[in-house]
């Protein structure tokens, strides 16, 4: 019986996780011995006690209706005592101990449209941002590009047929809510048109010193326009990061024809083998072409295929490129190398080749 209280509760924090753990986890917490992927999307974790836990991982579109969450709740009740969790990449995992229920659970999830997979050397859910669904600064949609990509890359979700893990991330602007800068393949929404300043509104909507300070390259300076205090943008210094818009809504960078996506490769966060690394620019610009972004999908698919064909076992995208060299990467992928690929920001020189260590091609 709920006790009605007038007192407003604050700072209670999240509920304690322990109440949501299935009995097998409570019993074996911190006492697990090993794990193995018994088949795509099914992880077996074995405890020191000999107890077994199966985690069945299904895809979600990240953007979820409460109707679907209720469906997951029903499925969890039916197959695993109501216990489930979500992963850092927006997959859902059903936690069960009864091995005989795995296949019926997989069949049920597939029937409902949430296929099982995304473990081991595969492509799992693409982490992504809000895009046109809910962001104010998006240079591209997120959910739509991700849906189009995963429809195409889907065989790599259901199978474990890649040399190593391939982690893809999407962010719809340079703010990178998805922090895509350390992904095997990252797709990043970009603006490419100069900010348009609404001088009539700026004085009342924005604080000028904050707006000036927001620019990483110092491209914004105070100006008086038509007798009103405002700012001006030095065109040559703008790299379209949109930070000015973040602090000042009277500045706009959105452009239907010139916004688009850039593609980055070779980052990772895991410490396994080589140290964590940033993603590097592969393709500076591809157009926004909704609803299915065919240019972006084709470019990513090409990258996946080239990697799958040439990388060695366990090798991540960045490790493979490191082994064969960037010239080989551009040759194998057929991506043109342009001046945009050469860094010209603060620590640009660190990426210049400063040795004669080059893989020369034999004369033809």
């Amino acid at each position, binding site marked *: 019986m709920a006790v009605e209280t007038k007192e407003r509760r*604050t700072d209670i924090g999240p509920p304690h996780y322990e109440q*949501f753990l299935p009995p097998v986890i409570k019993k074996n917490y911190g006492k697990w011995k090993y794990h193995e992927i018994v088949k795509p999307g099914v992880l077996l974790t074995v405890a020191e006690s000999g107890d077994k836990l199966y985690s069945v991982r299904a895809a979600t579109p990240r953007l979820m209706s409460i109707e679907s969450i209720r469906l997951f709740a029903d499925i969890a009740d039916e197959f695993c005592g109501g216990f489930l969790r979500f992963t850092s990449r927006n997959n859902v995992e059903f936690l069960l101990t009864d091995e005989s229920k795995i296949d019926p659970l997989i069949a049920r999830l597939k029937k409902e449209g949430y296929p099982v997979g995304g473990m081991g050397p595969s492509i799992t859910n693409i982490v992504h941002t809000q895009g046109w669904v809910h962001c104010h600064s998006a240079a591209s949609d997120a959910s739509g590009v991700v849906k189009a990509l995963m*429809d195409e890359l889907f065989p790599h979700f259901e199978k474990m047929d890649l040399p190593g893990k391939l982690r893809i991330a999407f962010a719809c602007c340079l703010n*990178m809510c998805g922090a895509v800068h350390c992904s095997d393949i990252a797709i990043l929404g970009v603006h490419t048109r100069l900010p348009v300043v609404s001088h009539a509104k700026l004085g009342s909507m924005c604080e000028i010193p904050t707006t000036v300070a927001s620019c990483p390259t110092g491209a914004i300076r105070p100006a008086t326009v038509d007798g009103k205090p405002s700012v001006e943008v030095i065109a040559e210094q703008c790299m379209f990061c949109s930070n000015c818009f973040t602090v000042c809504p009277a500045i706009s960078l959105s452009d239907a024809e010139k916004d688009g996506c850039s593609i980055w490769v070779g980052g990772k966060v895991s410490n396994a083998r080589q140290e964590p690394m940033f993603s590097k620019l592969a393709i500076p610009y591809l157009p926004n072409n909704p609803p299915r972004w065919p240019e972006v999908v084709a470019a990513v698919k090409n990258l996946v295929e080239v990697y799958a064909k040439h990388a060695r076992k366990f090798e991540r995208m960045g490790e493979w490129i490191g082994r064969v060299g960037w010239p080989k990467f551009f040759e194998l992928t057929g991506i043109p190398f342009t001046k945009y690929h050469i860094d010209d920001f603060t620590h640009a020189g660190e990426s210049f080749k400063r040795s004669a260590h080059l893989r020369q091609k034999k004369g033809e």
Partner: protein
Amino acid sequence: MADQKRETPRLDQLESGPWPSFVKELKKSRKNPMTEDLLGQLERSYEDKVVHWKHGGLVGVKGYGGGVIGRYSDVAAEFPKCAEFHTMRINQPAGWFYTSTVLRKICDIWEKHGSGITNMHGSTGDVILLGTTTPELEPTFQELTAAGFDLGGSGSAMRTPSCCCGMSRCEWALYDTMALTHDLTMTFQDEMHRPAFPYKFKIKCSGCPNDCVASIARADMSIIGTWRDDIRIDQDAVRAYVAAGTFDMSADVVDRCPTRCMHWDGKKLGIDDSNCVKCMHCINAMPKALRPGTDRGAVILIGSKAPIMGGALLSSVIVPFLKIETPYDDIKEVTQAIWDLWAEHGKNRERVGEFIQRIGLGSFLEQIGLEPCPEMVMQPRTNPYIFYEDESENAEG
């Protein structure tokens, strides 16, 4: 007129295909007029190829400076039901574990007060409830707290800490990530709900160097599990892996060791643990045969962030090894020292990683009371531009 069904020919094309469709999800909740208009506005974005949301700065629940992201439509006349479409960030339980009962509770609250659309979960880790109006914020908050949930962080505050599933399911968890995350979240409720920092501050806890929550790239403070003693080897299990033939022991494991501290003679695997950097590769390859040691703790790293505004950073080491034990006083003390310094001297919208670059890691360490050590750098400096201090003056002072 308010109940009209929006035509969405472009979005409809994203319903087909094997991957779960977000358009289907939106349509499942279209009986809510807000979501119906959201579908309409999104279709408009697909037609116009630009976003149709505006900034929203002044929404929240009483007393808190975060947890709600204001959002307004710039085509509200056409889509009045989603004219206001604010997000609420709900602090997730550590490790993202749920029961069906508690999930239904959240769904019921969101059906009553919002669009019925969510993200499970947002990039930082919160449950994201997408789309409600200003008057609904406080009632939603009160129902959530009654159900045991609270808002997460946003703005210039500590953001909702998050972690991997740790000891709940992983034999590689080298400290209890969920316990630490929950404890830090509870300890720093004020820092999360009442923004008092120069900019955001994220904490992520990964149980091992595989770093499943990407803490090294996405957290201002990255707490990554590690160990100090020897990798435990079951030689029979090693030979079983070799016999199974799924990989080439020499080429795929021994030669991939970053410090080449392993050797394999066809029968026995040897590891020079004094030279092992705990990268996890050999353990990842043979989970049944190799296990991390038992003298466990974590590396504390600081400063990672996305590009805005001084460029992207990975976190860097400030404490090479720390035992992670309740009540976690060491971590809390170093966190507090960092916040005190950065809150007072950080520039507006300067992340702690950028702050360190500006004032220098050496100076930063001095001011938070940590001793410099070689583990903190890839190599010592190569330039001679050293800011020498007058040691005699210090001695007298």
